[in-house]
């Protein structure tokens, strides 16, 4: 048992922390309140140049080959400052990883370096539909073979980064007659392809700077070479890649939770009521103790899941456990932090209300926490009876 990070992991964590403190933190509140995405896109470019878009990607494609533990550490540090930036980085890494895992050599060469270098501000993961959220196998977007092409028709929803993504990983039904989940394939669609329409942007509760859009396919014709992985095997790809993404989102939740607790704890040592600092009161002390204890547990769950992934072991259950626990701990931490600030916590003069709004979605996206519980219990029950 050895819990020390490697020197490289520490340096990546330090780089992420410094970048977040200097570049992300000062614009986070502005990004939350205003509609100008300029600072977000500028920071994404800088993060790409530093290597944060391909942490687990091979060097030949412009990646850092730094591994999943480093990815988790980086996500936490970025999210401490700006959750909107963090979610974009997490999805970009996931898009690169799915292309690296199942793409052809040509697809890898064509797209991964452009996301890793920042030429593409983002990549999008287009799985969810209005009628296919927790149950993605119920999707209706179709890809129909037609000569040298596939023709896509359908609508995706809640697609992160769609307005500035350079490439979309799109899942569509290719065999309507197949049993559920067995007739879905995965495609790469470039931004600007005729018939690929970026639809309305959602007005969200939090993570405002990260765009979340409807994406429509209207007779969108793509070459046969855009198929990624095996025909009709796309659902398995999606399920597999989402497990890695969950480590990213859990780490993001952890970062928000830590930011909230750090802010509130500092506040509690300065705020006086009844003639003394409120950190002298046991009610506040217990919030601090519980918040940090849960976040520490979350950190260890995340690092364990990341360690298993890097070691080539199964990690889906551990990734789901870590995502479930970290994002719920983060939400509880934000609730407690806001409570510690009292009325001020509810105002936009303090960042805690933003943390609370930003944290809420982490229990929903990348698989709701109810779905995480389904995955966890299914994996456990396999070993009983």
């Amino acid at each position, binding site marked *: 048992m050895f819990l020390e990070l490697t020197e490289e992991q520490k*340096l990546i964590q330090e780089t992420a922390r410094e970048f977040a403190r200097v570049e992300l933190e000062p614009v986070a509140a502005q990004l939350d309140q205003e509609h100008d995405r300029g600072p977000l896109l500028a920071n994404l470019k800088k993060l790409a140049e*530093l290597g944060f878009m391909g942490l687990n990607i091979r*060097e030949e494609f412009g990646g850092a*080959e730094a591994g999943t533990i480093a990815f988790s550490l980086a996500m936490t540090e970025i999210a401490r400052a700006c959750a909107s930036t963090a979610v974009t980085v997490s999805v970009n890494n996931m898009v690169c990883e799915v292309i690296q895992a199942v793409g052809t050599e040509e697809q890898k060469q064509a797209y991964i370096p452009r996301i890793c270098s920042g030429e593409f501000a983002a990549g999008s993961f287009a799985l969810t539909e209005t009628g296919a959220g927790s149950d993605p196998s119920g999707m209706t977007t179709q890809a129909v073979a037609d000569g040298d092409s596939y023709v896509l028709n359908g609508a995706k929803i809640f697609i992160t980064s769609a307005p500035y993504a350079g490439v979309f990983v799109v899942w569509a039904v290719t065999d309507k007659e197949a049993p559920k989940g067995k007739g879905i394939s995965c495609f790469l669609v470039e931004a600007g392809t005729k018939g690929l329409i970026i639809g309305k942007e959602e007005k969200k509760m939090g993570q405002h700077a990260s765009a979340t859009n409807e994406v429509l396919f209207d007779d969108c014709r793509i070459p046969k070479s855009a198929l990624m992985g095996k025909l009709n095997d796309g659902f398995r790809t999606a399920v597999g890649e989402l497990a890695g993404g969950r480590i990213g989102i859990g780490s993001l939740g952890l970062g928000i939770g830590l930011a909230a607790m750090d802010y509130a704890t500092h506040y509690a040592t300065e705020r006086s009521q009844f003639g003394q600092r409120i950190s002298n009161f046991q009610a506040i002390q217990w919030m601090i103790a519980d918040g940090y204890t849960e976040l520490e547990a979350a950190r260890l769950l995340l690092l364990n899941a990341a360690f298993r992934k890097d070691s080539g072991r199964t990690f889906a259950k551990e990734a789901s456990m870590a995502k479930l626990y970290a994002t719920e701990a983060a939400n509880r931490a934000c609730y407690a932090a806001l409570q510690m600030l009292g009325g001020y916590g509810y105002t936009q003069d303090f960042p805690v209300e933003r943390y609370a709004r930003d944290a809420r979605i982490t229990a929903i996206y990348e698989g709701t926490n109810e779905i995480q519980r389904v995955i966890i219990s299914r994996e456990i029950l396999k070993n009983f009876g």
Partner: protein
Amino acid sequence: MKILICVKQVPDMESRFKPDNAGVWFSDTDLAFRMNEYDEYAVEQAVQLREQLGDAADLTVLSIGPDRIVEALKKALAMGCDRAVHIQDPAAALKDPWQIAAIIAAFAKDKGFDLIFTGLQSQDRGSAQVGVTVAERLGFACTTTLVGFAFADGVITAKRELEGGVKGVVKLRTPALVTCQLGLNVPRYPTLPNIMKSKKKELVTIPVADLLHEEALAVTARFYPPAKKGGGIVLEGDVGDMAEKLIAILKEKTNVLR
């Protein structure tokens, strides 16, 4: 052009410092460490010089300390240094500037370095003596407190920061040693691919006993935190009186209202 950059790993300055058991230095248990800020300027300037000179420049980064300092060396490698030297010394923190300078000079002599960059001082000990002492021991030209650096035709043009914001310009020929001050440059973030590649760069470890044959000249006798003061000055009275008192204090104790 052979360039040596000397770096130190220091605690994060936001740490809470406690004396060690012997009461002569701070305890390093539970502290987070990073590269001394001034040494980051030194590394950055050396890397910029290499960008100017191309492969004609060869950058060696050196640090003295326990195994944990390898992280600082790897950061310098990730920022662009070519090779690293770890002078292994678990007790480096207890050595005085004379000994540290003696170790560096013993390593550097006969190696043919043309230029040595160091930080102006370390953030923890803050003696500002190591750089100049190394220069003296090696017989190098030396200037300190750099806020500007240029190199052309074998001549270094160094802009120095003097008291009260006054600047001076010094020209010196190699071999030379310069110490770097805040404002010289903005150190780059090491990129993640370069952090990972730092693993593959040369890192030589030398036991300190091979290089150090000097006794300390100035031994730290005691390390202690300042006595706790009261909670500052609390002004009382009506707002007008408090404003008057505050103005008087600012005039007396600071430059703000002069």
